[in-house]
């Protein structure tokens, strides 16, 4: 075997089955005797339900059952729980209105499920749903946070007067006000962060099943099966955990949208219990648009106080965050502890104050999506920095350098709670500028101008936080769950290894990278390591995959478990080699007595552990199987610099990203091939957000982008080749020195693209553009004004 340990670009173990069409996604699974569920959803943004008539549907061909909210109420089943509680400025807990499985009394967004029809075939269920009559009394609805906060706006939940979920703050307001009072200059920017629809390519699906003894199984498209088991079992359906198994097999992308516990999972499981038949549901894409939790949707004002040289003195931010119609599982945490705490970015701004108002509207719930809070913070900061450069005339790169936290300042305590352990922003900036040939840009701009194109370049120097932790701190801040991870390492008798991890892989390639970590530490070839995830009946209680936590938290647990394996292996080796444990060394898959040529292979030790004939049985249990739980000491803090270069067609306003460079500090790299792939995907999402994507609603809350026909996804010809580099400093507080790479692409890239467009349009006096910068928007700017001098 060639080198397969940490740092090797090992080809993926999971690819064989996917390339052969032998993946095992939820919709590929069929259970004997299954019935199909179809949901009749609200087509109204906001309405009272006056009457639901399901009689005709119930007697339609093939129909097995029809359920409404009343059936859940009759069973004493409450709503879907929220996993994070925020307290407002005044100390009061957030408004936490119920979120019924099927609507009761009112519908609150287009897509709110009202009736479930179960039939022998998918088509029969769908046909029968056509026969359901629902009388609604329409109520005024709102889609935007600004409308929802207007006096007299329609109230989404009686429990949340004025539609405010919470009104929260962080930072030292008095110190910030004082700094503003003494500032040489203040630069202000109003901006929005556009609402995105996650659109993992695999639509959500769920199959519930219940045996005669009341043992349930749920197959679901989830990033965290144990979390679903806990939430749904303990808080919704009251199924004891030992009687509920949740399986998340191959999952076709998640990006956050498959973290949450959704109504459909509860319904198929509950109905399976009633019918004692498996119940299957698969979302159609149009359902995904109106039922998968959306992302982003902020309206913000940011102000920076500056001294005469452009040093940042104080930052003040006010943000309105759209929660949608109900609180999704982790929604309240996103615009607070994953957003406002990131507002220092890579800058040594001494004081910061942020206030965040979370607002209910008649839209699909919003929750963590691909970056979750950090893209919003990064877009705000990196646009603000460019606006400062614009207003003060200071070069935007020089301005950033002047305000960077220097490489020798770590650990660095920010004024918004976080303590960064490591980073080197100058190095990633310099490397990115070099890779992007920044100095060659003027020539490229000239060449483009000769072709009638406007060319611009933009950068963003960003920072993010992964592996939310430690549990005790998160708990004090409102988390209702632990945030550790677990790994069970089972060495098999012949020395192959099975890893059971609480993390989940839905594209990240853990079957390969986790095996590489094992290869590195135990010297076992990657082919001899099997990584098991996604089935609560097989894996220990772990928290799953989100927030780029898998290698930083799950990988750390894996290392700790292998430490225990090695420690036990040394004791077995000491016995076999008749040496003292302290003299045994483990290296390259061999236990040897220091300074001698006496050794035992890893496989020999494994076999001895399971065939303990010659074994220190008085002091040591047989077997070689260890579990470790790892609770991180801190977040990890990846960061870096992204450079985008765009060309704008003067005739059409079409923006093309022509070059993109990402140089990221993600800590130790386990598999560079996979790292690059993660960054590519994130950057494509960032370009999508910057140029194309917008979850569209009309003012009243009707969805106007409900399919791929009117929600513009980035396609192969919207994205350039992407140059990816890494310049890493190591995380100082986890055993692998890793930081995480799942979201950096989507976090760093949107402001780089918008900064490039603003740069290209500088002669048109453009200071800021909100996303998406569609060709229509750009075309209007080009039409509106003959070029004039940049002026505010």
């Amino acid at each position, binding site marked *: 075997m060639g080198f397969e340990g940490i740092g090797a670009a090992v080809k993926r173990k999971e690819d064989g089955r996917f390339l*052969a069409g032998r993946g095992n996604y939820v919709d590929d699974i069929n259970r004997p005797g299954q019935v199909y569920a179809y949901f009749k959803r609200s087509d109204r943004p906001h309405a009272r339900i006056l009457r639901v008539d399901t009689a005709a549907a119930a007697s339609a061909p093939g129909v097995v059952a029809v359920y409404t909210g009343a059936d859940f109420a009759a069973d004493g089943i409450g709503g879907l729980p929220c996993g994070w509680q925020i307290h407002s400025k005044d100390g009061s807990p957030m408004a936490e209105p119920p979120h019924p499985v099927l609507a009761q009394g009112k519908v609150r967004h287009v897509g709110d499920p009202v009736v479930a029809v179960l039939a022998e075939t998918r088509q029969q269920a769908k046909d029968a749903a056509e026969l359901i009559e629902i009388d609604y009394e329409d109520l005024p609805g709102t889609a935007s946070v600004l409308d929802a906060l207007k006096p007299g706006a329609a109230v989404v939940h009686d429990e949340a007067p004025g539609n405010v979920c919470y009104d929260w703050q962080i930072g030292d307001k008095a110190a910030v006000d004082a700094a503003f009072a003494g500032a040489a200059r203040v630069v202000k920017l109003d901006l929005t962060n556009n609402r995105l629809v996650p659109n993992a390519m695999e639509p959500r699906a769920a199959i519930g099943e219940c045996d005669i003894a009341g043992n349930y199984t749920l197959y679901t498209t989830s990033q965290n099966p144990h979390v679903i088991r806990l939430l749904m079992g303990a808080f919704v359906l009251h199924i004891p955990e030992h009687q509920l198994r949740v399986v998340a097999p191959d999952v076709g992308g998640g990006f956050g949208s498959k973290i949450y516990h959704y109504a459909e999972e509860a319904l198929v499981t509950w109905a399976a219990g009633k019918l004692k038949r498996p119940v299957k549901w698969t979302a159609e894409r149009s359902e995904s648009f109106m039922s998968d939790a959306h992302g982003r949707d902020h309206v913000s004002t940011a102000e920076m106080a500056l001294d005469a040289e452009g040093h940042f003195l104080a930052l003040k931010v006010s943000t309105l965050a759209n929660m949608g119609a109900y609180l999704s599982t982790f929604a309240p945490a996103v615009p607070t502890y994953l957003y406002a705490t990131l507002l220092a970015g890579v800058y040594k701004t001494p004081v910061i104050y942020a206030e965040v108002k979370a607002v209910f509207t008649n839209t699909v719930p919003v929750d963590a999506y691909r970056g979750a809070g950090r893209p919003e913070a990064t877009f705000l900061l990196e646009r603000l920095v460019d606006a400062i450069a614009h207003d003060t005339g200071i070069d935007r790169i020089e301005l950033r350098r002047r305000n960077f936290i220097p490489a020798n300042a770590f650990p660095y305590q920010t004024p918004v709670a976080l303590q960064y352990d490591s980073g080197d922003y100058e190095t990633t900036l310099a490397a990115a500028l070099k890779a992007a040939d920044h100095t060659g840009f003027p020539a490229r701009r000239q060449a483009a101008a000769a072709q009638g194109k406007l060319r611009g370049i933009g950068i963003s120097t960003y920072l993010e936080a992964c592996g939310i932790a430690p549990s005790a701190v998160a708990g004090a801040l409102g988390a209702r769950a632990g945030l550790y991870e677990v790994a069970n390492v089972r060495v098999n008798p012949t020395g192959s290894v099975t890893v059971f991890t609480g993390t989940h892989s839905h594209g990240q390639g853990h079957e390969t990278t986790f095996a590489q970590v094992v290869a590195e530490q135990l010297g076992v070839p990657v082919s001899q390591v099997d990584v098991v995830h996604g089935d609560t009946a097989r894996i220990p209680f772990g928290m799953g995959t989100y927030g780029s936590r898998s290698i930083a938290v799950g990988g750390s647990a894996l290392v700790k478990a292998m430490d225990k394996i090695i420690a036990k292996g040394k004791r077995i080796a000491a016995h076999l080699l008749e040496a003292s444990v302290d003299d045994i060394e483990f290296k390259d898959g061999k236990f040897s007595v220091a300074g001698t040529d006496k050794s035992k292979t890893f496989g020999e030790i494994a076999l001895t552990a399971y065939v303990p004939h010659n074994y220190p049985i008085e002091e040591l249990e047989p077997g070689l199987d260890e579990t470790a739980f790892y609770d991180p000491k801190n977040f990890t803090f990846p960061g870096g610099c992204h450079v985008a270069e765009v060309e704008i067609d003067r005739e059409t306003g079409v923006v093309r990203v022509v070059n993109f460079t990402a140089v990221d500090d993600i800590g130790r790299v386990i598999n560079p091939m996979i790292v*690059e792939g993660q960054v590519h995907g994130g950057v494509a999402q960032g370009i999508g957000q910057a140029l194309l994507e917008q979850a569209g609603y009309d003012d009243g809350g009707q969805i106007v982008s409900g399919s791929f026909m009117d929600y513009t996804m980035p396609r*192969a*010809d919207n994205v350039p080749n992407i140059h990816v580099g890494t310049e890493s400093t190591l995380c100082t507080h986890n055993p692998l020195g890793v930081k995480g790479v799942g979201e950096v692409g989507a976090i760093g890239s949107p402001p780089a693209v918008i900064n490039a467009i603003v740069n290209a349009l500088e002669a048109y006096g453009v200071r800021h553009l909100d996303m998406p910068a569609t060709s229509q928007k750009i075309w209007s700017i080009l039409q509106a004004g003959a070029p004039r001098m940049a002026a505010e």
Partner: protein
Amino acid sequence: MPQVTLTVNGKRHTVAVEGRTLLVEVLREKLGLTGTHIGCDTSQCGACVVHVNGDSVKSCTMLALQAEGAEVTTIEGLAKPDGTLHPMQEMFREHHALQCGYCTPGMVMSAIDLVAKHPEGLTEREIREGLDGNLCRCTGYHNIVKAVAAAWPLMHAKPMPAAAE
């Protein structure tokens, strides 16, 4: 119920279908060929692409009855019986052109058709435009484009013409 007879991956099948049944439903639900995926309901994503009589087709846009007498190849039918992968599958693996794998079968089927129909060579731009009908949310397309370019010489058994590179 009407019947349709079609050959899938070299095997003849006769199945009873409703008039409205789609080809993709027959493949997944009647023939158990779940490698062909469904990613949308508006024929926009390409997760369902198969080859029908040698052309790539979105199998969600075709009624099963329209496939009467057709030769259909799905992702499951690409590898040789001994398991040797098609060069396009090989290059997807080699260049890490898949992550979650959900778009992959459709992407591979589209890419094979694209390369096969361009014996004169393909530029990067042409590959990107040629894959315009297939969505991927994971990879950012970068490595898919690389994989398709790398498969071209293997499928045509000659180097990519320089002009196309």
